[in-house]
């Protein structure tokens, strides 16, 4: 129910209300983006037809690096 799928914004209407989101493997669908601030190229999480948050890949990589450091300190 709270499942949200990540995808990339490839088209955005002028009012920034609706976008086309590319989920990879050729799957593209319209999503309502009125709940987030987005631009073309952003990765978003889409839940029940609405983008609910913009994803930050840099943050994800940093978390992993940081986590590996924390884990090595725990040994």
């Amino acid at each position: 129910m709270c499942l949200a799928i990540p995808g990339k914004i490839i088209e955005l209407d002028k009012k920034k209300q609706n976008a086309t989101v590319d989920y990879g493997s050729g799957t593209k669908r319209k999503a309502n983006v009125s709940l987030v601030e987005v631009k073309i190229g952003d990765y978003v999480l889409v839940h029940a037809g609405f983008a609910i948050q913009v994803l930050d890949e840099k943050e994800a990589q940093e978390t992993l690096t940081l986590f590996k450091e924390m884990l090595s300190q725990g040994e």
Partner: protein
Amino acid sequence: MIVFSLRDKQLADDIISQLKKSRLHLRFMHVCGTHQDTLVKHGLDVLLQNCGVEIGQGPGCPVCVTTPKEIEEILLLAKHGKTIATFGDMTRVPGATSSLHQMKTEGCDVRTVYSIEDALLLAESNKDKEVVFMAVGFETTAPTTASVILQGPPVNFSVLCCHRLIPPALQAIVEMGELKIDGFIEPGHVSTIIGTKPYEFISGKYQIPQVIAGFEPLDLLMGVWMLVRQIQQGTAEVENEYVRAVKPQGNRKAQQVLTDVFKPVDVKWRGFPIISQSGLWLRKKYADYDARLKYKDELQMISEEEFAEPAGCLCGEVLRGLISSKHCPLFGRECTPETPVGPCMVSSEGNCHIQYRYAKK
């Protein structure tokens, strides 16, 4: 793509090996069907059990926590000729004598939708039909309902509001005291909306560590490891493992539409007594879209009635984390995904359904 780094087997092995060395005896709870799916699908629940960490699902499945009364409300509206639109899992939840799915086979107009926007489209293109959207879901889903209400839908559209909030349910679980919980894994997608702050009172008041986690296997293992670290260091705070999607402040735009459209109300959850300020109903200003007010006369006959859970069904105990689905005498016998007795076997986010799908076979 980041998802591949989050399936790093070596890192998973390192975490498990550290947890094993710590000789733990802990019980954690999460409140999300998608977390449960990841845990059972990848066998992490068993792996963690072998490290001394029991991790189970609480009331984290919106379809499962809808009450028998809410099911009767929507069934009655279907019977009165309304066009019912809702998410797929909802249609198969059994009521006292029927389900939306069964009523559809008997000629009622029941539509499965992917988004509330599909229900809106249905109302816009069928002005002769009274379309009622059964709105279930936590903070992740409620902004989508609010957003459509703010668009000013046509007069033949209304909402049976069954949205619920996670933090009051966490408090209810702790206050009921049936289970000692050493830490909460908090739901990543609810948290994209609400951020980290609404959980803080749980750690402050009850000294329970919390970690917001994502949905990849490594997200959950890192989440568990972070909870264990808090316990070992004697701290209790809200940490965020899912930083790629959850900002500390959450999604302010979504929070604003929630505040504009809904008021928090005291509601029952399946298996729970009334939980204070845990439900969201439409504000007075949007009363025209409130199916409970719009169809007050049709719903009158059940307005004072209370409905019991199906005979023998232990969904309430499963949702409070007291028993594992497999300990319910109906599990896999009378109650299967094809013949569900309770909602936890219907919903793909329900613990019984997940256990049946991955663990039974």
